[in-house]
């Protein structure tokens, strides 16, 4: 933990988070942390699994015979639902040791990768997937395929740096 960060307003917010009732409960209960962590792992597993179904379809490595729009409409709502669950459980884990997590390099890299995944997804959804050629041939453009490959790479990296957090943090 960088000593400087604790003295400014970010440090104040982090300490306030650690003092909330939910944070104290997660930090002190024997069972809360492992249970929330398991739900976090399951949620992330489902985010990655469902997004892979869509990405692999875009890359035409799987389900190539099914219309892209049908797969996206069926699967992506579950990606969003499980992503919300991952953020919620991740938030609870975070506030239990907010200053420690905030100062952890692996945690920071994970957050940056998540933001990049978000930007990639927005670009895909609002620019690349709007291409009328997509509906005509039901095939992604090269840009679409690059976005799918970036998505898979980013999510795999998110798991790696998520796991690194546990190896690089002082036990709470």
């Amino acid at each position, binding site marked *: 933990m960088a000593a400087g960060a604790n003295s400014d307003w970010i440090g104040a917010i982090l300490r306030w988070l650690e003092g909330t009732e939910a944070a104290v409960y997660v930090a002190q209960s024997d069972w809360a942390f492992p249970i929330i962590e398991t739900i976090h792992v*399951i949620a992330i597993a489902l985010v*990655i699994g469902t997004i*892979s*179904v869509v990405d692999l379809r875009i890359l035409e490595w799987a389900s190539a015979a099914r219309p892209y729009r049908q797969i996206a409409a069926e699967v992506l709502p579950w990606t969003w639902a499980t992503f919300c669950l991952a953020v919620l459980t991740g938030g609870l884990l975070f506030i239990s040791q907010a200053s420690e997590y905030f100062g952890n390099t692996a945690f920071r890299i994970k957050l940056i990768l998540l933001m990049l995944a978000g930007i990639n997804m927005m670009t895909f959804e609002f620019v690349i997937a709007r291409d009328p050629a997509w509906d005509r041939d039901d095939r992604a453009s090269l840009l679409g395929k690059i976005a799918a490959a970036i998505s898979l790479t980013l999510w795999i990296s998110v*798991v790696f740096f998520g*796991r690194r957090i546990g*190896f690089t943090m002082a036990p709470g």
Partner: protein
Amino acid sequence: MAGFAEWLSATPLSIAIQKYEWLTPLLQTIHILAIAMVLSSAFMIGLRALGIMASQSIAAVAHRFVPWIWTGLALLACSGIVLIIGEPQRALVNPAFQIKMLLVLVAGALTYGFQFSLRTVGEQRKIGLMTMGFAAGFFLLWCAIAFAGRLIAYTQPA
């Protein structure tokens, strides 16, 4: 088992695995990605069996996702075995690990049984209550396996 774990931790292979500090998180990452394959496949089959996702027949959904369950299981076994060789005492003598292995055996048998039962289902659209219960139970079983796996880290002898 404790003696075997102690012997294993002294083997050259185990010592080699212990030497690379980045290897364990890397293997755990592969392990989690394999869990993603299995859990998401079970989830997709479950959603179809419960009729929530119904654009394809259950046979088509199973054909799409059951191979991923087997691939995921193989990856889990490989990465899991290397992790155990690297840290035998962490897992082998741990009750959470032993329960996990028992649940994995049940899950493997159920996957095989499910695949077998689908041979008679064919392309029919109607799904029996048995299949529904099975698909929901199968997903929950994998959630329990994930929980037991995470518990290994919390039940280390002091």
